[in-house]
Structures are given as C-alpha cells and as structure tokens.
C-alpha cells in the first residue's frame, strides 16, 4: 500500500507498472483526476492539511482493503499549483478479479473527495482566484457506500 502527497508531476506509467507483476493479479484499475481546462482557467492550486491528509488517506485505503479483495492500493495526490491537463490525483489497485479493484478505486475516490482535507483554488488568466465549493453530488456519492 502506498499513500503519497507530492508537489511534483505524478509518473502515471511508473505507478501502473508497479501494480503489475504478481502471480495473483488478474486486473488493474486506476483513476486519474486531471485539471479540466476552459477558456478562462489558468491553473488549480491544491492546499492541504499535511498531518491529517496522510492519516485520512491511509485510513481510506485500509478500509478499502478490508472491504474489497484487492492485493495492493496506491493513492498519490498532488498539491501546489497544477496546470491544465496535469494529474491531480492517481488512485490504482490490483486484484485477482476485476470487480474488486474497480470498486476499490471508486470507493477510495468517493471517500477522498469528502474526507481527505484538500482544497482547490482556481486561478484564471486575468489573475483572479476563487476557492471551489464542495458539491452535493460528492457527498451523495460517498453516502452511496453506506
């Protein structure tokens, strides 16, 4: 299990490769959250609460490991300024059968969105900034898991 906060670009290929290669792995699932661009957005800045973030992400990964038959879990979240198209978060998992790793990744993302203390600030091309507000759909998605 790997939980990491980074200020540098996430090496997606490297992380996916590290989930391969065990005899008992039948599938690998991953989610990569990226900065969605539009005509006015320059970048996102991700702030976090370091002590609590690592603790919460580790807890979420541990719960996912108990809930689903997965072999391994990787959560890497970037902080600081992130440009359009770059990865904000990588969540990957591997398991003997595909349902478990796919569900584990979805579960982790739904919990991460509401329980891991990160905050996004949008920076626009005109220099203005705005903190993003939490969306009800993110709360609903977490509640889906009971």
């Amino acid at each position, binding site marked *: 299990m790997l939980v990491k906060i980074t200020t540098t670009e996430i090496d997606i290929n490297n992380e996916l490769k590290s989930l391969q290669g065990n005899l008992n792995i039948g599938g690998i699932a991953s989610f990569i*959250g990226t900065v969605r661009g539009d005509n006015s957005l320059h970048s996102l800045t*991700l*702030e*976090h*609460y370091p*002590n*609590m973030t690592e*603790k*919460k992400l580790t807890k979420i990964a541990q719960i996912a490991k108990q809930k689903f038959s997965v072999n391994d879990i990787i959560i890497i*979240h970037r902080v600081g300024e992130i440009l359009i198209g770059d990865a*904000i*978060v990588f969540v990957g998992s591997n398991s003997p059968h595909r349902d478990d790793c796919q569900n584990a990744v979805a579960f982790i*993302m739904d919990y*991460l*969105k*509401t*329980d*891991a*203390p*990160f*905050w*996004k*600030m949008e920076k626009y091309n005109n220099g203005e900034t705005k*903190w*993003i*507000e*939490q969306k009800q759909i993110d709360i609903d998605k977490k509640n889906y898991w009971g």
Partner: protein
Amino acid sequence: MNILYFAWLKNKIGKPFDELNQDFDSVNDLIDYLKSQGENYAQVFQDKNIIRVAINCEFAQMSEPVKVGDEVAFFPPITGG
C-alpha cells in the same frame, strides 16, 4: 493550543495559525473568543454552517471541548480529488 486555518479562512484571517494557552468548554466557545479578536475573525466565523473543524486531525463537532495541547483546525468543506 495550536489553532490552524486553511483555504479561504487563512486568506481572510491573514495568517495560518494562532496559539492560545486556554481551555474552552466547546469549539463554539473558542469561536466566540476568536470572533472578539478582530473584524477579520468575526467575518470568517460569521456563518458556522460553512466551516468544518478537526481536533487533533479528526473531524469534530462544534460542541466538543478543546484544551491546551490540542491542535484545532478550521477549514471549509473539502474539495480535493
């Protein structure tokens, strides 16, 4: 007690943390104290419904007590991922 502020709360208060050598019967009481420390604090804590609190890195309720030695963090609802 260390009191940490994140995201727009930190911007509006103008600093990332405060230190206090005092116990409070509840987070609500701590907020009332902070609101008396200046207009910027009063503005930030005007609507408690849009603020979340953690005590020693665990989500907490506004009714929970806080004491010297605790790390209390105030922040808006989470928007990571």
